[in-house]
C-alpha cells in the first residue's frame, strides 16, 4: 500500500513538473475553453432578463456562478482521451506499460491528477477575472466548499473510469469514432454541461439520476453554488463513490478481457 502511495506521489510530481513547463499552452487552452460556458451564460442571462429576472429558479447572477464554477469542473473532467488508446496499442507503448509491475491505469490516474493540480492553480486568476466581468452571486458555506473539493476529484475519477472503458473498445475494433461521438453527445446533454439539469424536462432529470454523467458535472457545481442541504450534499458524495466502485469493477473485468485479446493477437 505504501508503495502505491509512493508511486502516485512520484508520478504526480513528474506530471506537475512537466505541465508547469507547458503553462503557456495550458493557459491558452483554458482561455479557449471559456468561450463555451460564456456563450451559454450570455444566452441564459438574456432569457432570464426577458422573463423578468429569473428562469428555472436561476437569476443571471446564479447562472454566472454556475458557469464560472463550470470552467473548473470542465477542466477536472478532462482525462485521457478514448481516441488515445488506438495510438497506444499501435505504437507499442502499451507493451512497455504492461512490463511494469503496476497496473497501467494507476499511471493514467496519477499523471492526470498531477496535471489537475497545475490546472487548479492556473484557474484561480481566470475565475477571478470572470467573477469581475460577470458578477456572479456566490453564497458558499464551509460544508459546501469541502464537499465541492471532494466532488471534483470524485468527478475526475468517475470520468476516468468511463473514458477508459470507452477507449478499451479499441482492443476489439478500430472503427470507434461513431461510438465515441455518440457518447460525447449524450454526455453533453445528460451531465449538466449544456444547461443546469434543473432546466431540463422532468423525464430527462429522472433519467440522469440513474446515469453517471450528472455526477461528473452537475453535482460538483451544484454542491458549491446550489444551496443543497447537508443530507443531499453527502448523499451525492455517496453516489459518486458508488459510481467509482461500479466503474472500477466493470473496468477490471473488461481490462482482463482486453489484455487476453491483446496477448493473443500481439501489439
Amino acid at each position, binding site marked *: 500500500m505504501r*508503495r502505491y502511495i*509512493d*508511486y502516485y*506521489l*512520484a*508520478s504526480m*510530481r*513528474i506530471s506537475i*513538473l*512537466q505541465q508547469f*513547463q*507547458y503553462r503557456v499552452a495550458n493557459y491558452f487552452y483554458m482561455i479557449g475553453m471559456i468561450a463555451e460556458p460564456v456563450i451559454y451564460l450570455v444566452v441564459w442571462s438574456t432569457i432570464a432578463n426577458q422573463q423578468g429576472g429569473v428562469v428555472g429558479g436561476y437569476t443571471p447572477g446564479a447562472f454566472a456562478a454556475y458557469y464560472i464554477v463550470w470552467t473548473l469542473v470542465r477542466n477536472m473532467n478532462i482525462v485521457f482521451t478514448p481516441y488515445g488508446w488506438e495510438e497506444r496499442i499501435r505504437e*507499442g*507503448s502499451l*507493451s*512497455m506499460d*504492461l*512490463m*511494469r*509491475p*503496476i497496473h497501467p491505469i494507476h499511471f493514467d490516474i496519477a499523471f492526470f491528477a498531477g496535471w489537475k493540480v497545475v490546472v487548479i492553480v492556473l484557474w484561480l486568476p481566470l475565475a477571478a477575472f470572470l467573477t469581475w466581468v460577470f458578477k456572479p452571486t456566490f453564497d458558499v458555506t464551509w460544508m459546501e466548499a469541502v464537499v465541492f473539493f471532494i466532488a471534483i476529484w470524485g468527478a475526475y475519477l468517475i470520468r476516468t473510469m468511463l473514458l477508459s472503458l470507452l477507449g478499451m473498445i479499441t482492443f476489439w475494433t478500430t472503427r470507434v469514432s461513431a461510438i465515441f461521438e455518440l457518447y460525447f453527445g449524450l454526455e453533453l446533454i445528460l451531465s449538466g454541461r449544456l444547461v443546469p439539469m434543473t432546466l431540463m424536462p422532468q423525464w430527462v432529470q429522472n433519467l440522469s439520476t440513474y446515469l453517471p454523467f450528472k455526477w461528473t458535472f452537475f453535482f460538483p457545481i451544484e454542491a458549491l453554488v446550489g444551496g443543497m442541504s447537508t443530507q443531499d450534499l453527502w448523499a451525492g458524495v455517496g453516489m459518486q463513490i458508488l459510481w467509482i466502485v461500479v466503474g472500477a469493477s466493470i473496468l477490471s473485468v473488461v481490462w482482463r478481457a482486453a489484455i*487476453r485479446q491483446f*496477448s*493473443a*493477437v*500481439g*501489439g
Partner: protein
Amino acid sequence: MSTVVSISQLAKYYQVPEREAGLKASIASLFNRKYKNIKAVDGITFDIGAGEVVGFLGPNGAGKTTTLKMLSGLLHPTSGDVRVLGYEPRHRSHDYLKQITLVMGNRNQLTWDLPALDSFDLQRAVYGIPADQFKRTRDEFIELLELKDLVNKPVRNLSLGERMKMEIVAALLHQPKVLFLDEPTIGLDVTMQRRIRTFVAEYNKRYNATVLLTSHYMADVEALCKRVIVIHHGRILFDGDLSKLVSQFSSYKTLSLSLQNTDVELSKYGEVVGREDGRVTLRVPKAQTSQVTARLLSDLQVDDLTVEDAPVDDVIDQVFSQKEDA
C-alpha cells in the same frame, strides 16, 4: 548452473484474413472468409542457464521478437511450454515482472521534457526499490556509462546515443535477473554501440544476470555472446557456440568491385554472385581474401574495391540452405 529459461516446443500461430484484390473477391470474402495460417514461431526448444548471454540471430520476420514477447509475457503462446525463473510469463505476476526487464531499441520510456534523473526516480517508485539500494545502483550505472553531466539535462536535449544509454540505465535500476534486449543498438553509431555492449557485459558480470539479445548486427553478438541461437521461419537452425557458427558458416568474405570492363572472366578469382552496371560482387574464402585482392588489383583496372564480411542474412541463408540439403 541452474536453468533460468526453459522453452519446450513453443509455437505461435496467427490467423490472418486473406483476400485478393478486386470487387468480386471483396464480395466473395463477405461470405467465405479465407484465413492464412502464419507460423511466427514453429516449435522451438532450448534451455538457458543463469548468467548466460545468448544471442538470437535471424533476419526480419524470423520469429525473434515474437519469442522475446512470449518470454516477457506480452504474447500468449499458441502451444508449448515456457518458464522463466520458475514463472509462466503469460500470467505476468508482479513478482515476475520485478525480476525481468525488456528493452526495445526504439522505444522511449523516459519522460521527454524532464531530466533523466526524474525518470529514474519514477522507476524507483514503480519497482519499489529500497531507497539506499536505488541510490547505490543508480550512481554505479551513472559512473559506468559516464553520464554524470547528462542526467540533469532534459531528455529531449540529448543525442540519440545518450538517450539510449539513459534508457538502459532506467531499465536496469531494479537489478533484474533476466534481461530481454530487442535490437538495443539499432540506429546508433559505432562508438555508442560499443559503450552499450560493454555496459551490458559488465552488468552481466556483476549481477550474474541472464541476457537474451536479439540483433541484426553481428558485431553485437560477437562482442557479447558465447552462445547463439539462429532462428529462421520460426524454427531453430543452430544452437551452440558462436565460434562454431562463425567458422562453419561465415567463412566467406564479399568483395565488391567497380570495374572499367565488366566482361572480364572473373571465376578464377572467386565465385561471382552479382554483376550489374559496372559493379561485380565476388564471394571469396576468408583465408584467400588478401591474396585475391592483391591479384585483382594488379591484374585488372579496378576503380573501387570494398571487402565486407558476409552479411548475416547470407549466413542465415547459407545455414538454412545447408539444413535443407542435409
